[in-house]
């Protein structure tokens, strides 16, 4: 086989290897704490993917956590009040979040740039105030408890309360599905159009692109994914309440996207989300009071050296390795 072909296939092979690795990983490493971090990282992956999708349509949303909340509450209500099964509640969470996003989007996406950001910030706060005070639906601060699903497949009964492994596989599946969707969008005509809208709105509009349509599409899609993530997260924690969805999470999503690399639609947010949630939790456990300082400094340092995010490493790392070997050859030459 020729080298060029192999090289072209390399990313695909690496991706497949990575997916297989994620699938067998919990079977080899039986660390339940790590598993729980990975599950939360998965939720954050979906969240960051949604955030990146909105961002890449040229809008900077500071209230994405509100869609996590809408999805979470919808999922919890569908599960506990309507008694829907797990899968349908996830879907319901995503759909209701998407509907809310669509209705809000056609109104607030008219605002440009920073006005939109701050409007979403305000909406996020309003969502939390509503969640806290709409007792008849959200039960205020008490929140809604969600029973862990019990799935029966033939003879096999999986009780989600006793084992967290199913959650891991479900979130991996969800992340792969969302990643595939956003990857396809990014590579297809829709993605190109959305990028055009983001980088040169006036130009795009005069080239026949209806700005609002594409902004709303991306906002709604992102909200759908975020809503599914919210519903899943609520199932995983088996409870939903207002403190879950603080506005600060939206800025965390931004940090994740930038650390991973904003100019890649899929790999950047996913890498960023995994890195930030893993090290964030590790710092919380090991550093305690020092955590904010170390976290902040690390973020700044990372951005300083890799302003385009960790995805940049795929170009930088091979070049770096090469330069290391080159230098070694050069050193004896230098004195001469």
């Amino acid at each position, binding site marked *: 086989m020729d080298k060029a072909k192999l090289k072209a296939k390399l990313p695909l092979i690496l991706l497949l290897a990575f997916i297989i690795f994620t699938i067998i990983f919990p079977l080899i490493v039986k660390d339940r704490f790590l598993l729980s971090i990975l599950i939360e990282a998965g939720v954050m992956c979906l969240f960051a993917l949604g955030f990146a999708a909105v961002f890449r349509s040229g809008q900077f949303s500071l209230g994405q956590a509100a869609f996590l909340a809408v999805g979470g509450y919808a999922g919890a209500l569908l599960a506990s009040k309507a008694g829907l099964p797990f899968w349908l509640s996830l879907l319901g969470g995503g759909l209701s979040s998407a509907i809310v996003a669509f209705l809000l989007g056609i109104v607030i996406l008219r605002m440009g740039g920073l006005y939109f950001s701050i409007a979403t910030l305000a909406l996020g706060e309003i969502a939390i105030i509503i969640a806290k*005070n709409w007792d008849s639906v959200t039960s205020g601060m008490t929140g809604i408890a969600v029973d862990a699903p019990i799935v029966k497949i033939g003879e096999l009964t999986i009780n989600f309360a006793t084992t967290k492994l199913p959650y891991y596989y479900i979130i991996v599946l969800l992340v792969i599905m969302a990643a595939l969707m956003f990857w396809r969008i990014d590579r297809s005509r829709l993605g190109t159009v959305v990028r055009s809208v983001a980088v040169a709105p006036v130009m795009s509009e005069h080239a026949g692109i209806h700005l609002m349509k594409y902004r709303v599409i991306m906002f709604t899609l992102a909200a759908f994914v975020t809503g599914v993530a919210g519903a899943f997260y609520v199932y995983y*924690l088996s409870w939903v309440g207002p403190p879950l969805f603080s506005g600060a999470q939206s800025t965390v999503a931004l940090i994740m996207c930038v650390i991973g690399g904003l100019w890649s639609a899929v790999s950047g947010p996913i890498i960023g989300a995994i890195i930030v949630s893993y090290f964030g939790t590790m710092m919380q456990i090991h550093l305690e*009071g020092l955590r904010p300082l170390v976290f902040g400094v690390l973020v700044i340092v990372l951005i300083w050296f890799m302003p385009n995010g960790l995805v940049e490493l795929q170009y930088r790392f091979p070049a770096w390795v090469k330069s290391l070997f080159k230098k070694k050859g050069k050193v004896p030459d230098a004195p001469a």
Partner: protein
Amino acid sequence: MKRKFIYIALVVVLVLSIITSCAAPAAKAPAPPKILKIGSIMPFSGPASMWGESIKPVMEIYRDLINADGGWQVGDDKYIIELYFADGPIFSVQADAAAARTLIYDKQVSAIVSYFGVGYSAVAPICNAEKVVFNTSTISMGAYSASREPYSIFGFPAIEMSINQAMAVMQAFPQYKTLCWTATKGGNVDIEKIYAPVDEEIQKKYGVRSIRLYYPEGTTNFTPYLIKMAEMGAEVLFSFGTPLEIGLMARQRYQLGYKWPVAANGAILDTKIVKGLAGSEEAMQNICGDFCYPWLLKKVQIAPRYLDMANRIREAYKQKYEGKEPYAGAFGVGVTMMGQYLEGVRMAGSTDPDQVMKVLRGGTVETFLGKYTLSGNETYGSPVVFGFPCAMSIIKGNESVYLNEEPLWDVDHPLVNVTDLIKE
């Protein structure tokens, strides 16, 4: 060149941190014969970290003193106690849950005590799934259900206590008849749900009228709310806010020319901070708050071994921290909630969580604060009233004066003159 070194350093740091974090659970010390592991989720980062930082050392001293005595007697065995702390900044559910998981999965604790964050409902399922006793405060509300959570107990009756405290304050100031409960709406405590039902009872029993006013979260400027309260006829404020909010409320009330008492809920009232926030000697008059040194009170009966231990803890603390007195609230939440679990283990004669819970549910245990009776009810929380001292301190002049609790529901003893209560 320079950049390269920084990259190398960065990669090394990343790799090292991955290794250490993965290796941490694996590298366990060889276990000595009998060990009882207790975990505690406390805020060590974020705005509440001062409470975690001041409670932690007191709990550690208590652990050290028990271990110095050869361990905790359970049946025929003596257990060495190991105490693990995890950071749970009280406003982050995710962080609380992560803290609970690391305590349970990595440290393999058999109980989590003294937790008071907002993530109760996220932590409880983790504990209950792993049969870890979870001792929390009734203030960390959530969707509690006795059937789903057989291993949750509410060892710190913050809510029950606050009703008693409010009544104590009303009786310390008999000239006032209107009590204004105030809190952030949708904050930690839903005062509407919990206290509205007792309004009538309070009115009947003490002739005290209750009114309510809420303010938004994060409020530092209480002026509009205080003026509104005054118009509603408030004479005593009972706040569920943080000490910061109490102090600011007291100060702004004084600036507006109101002299009402401002009372605070909870064991987290550090008088020094409140005094500072109130701004001046006059402004801080009539601030009432919890004070968890019940041995200072005449009325409270504390088991001798606990009184003894309390004094030893205070001694050790003073030695360790240059003569400073340990933070009073640490006896209220930290050490007492740890003690309740230890009492449960002693009484059950085993560390088996089922046995411990059998003893604790509806059982009566001795603590640093006196005798506790935990409810066996399937209802929310644990109305602990018998013997719970609920000491209030009221700032008068330069010193604080203490008065005893006056339980609302069960024991009906008359209020003792405030000045008689301080032991000489």
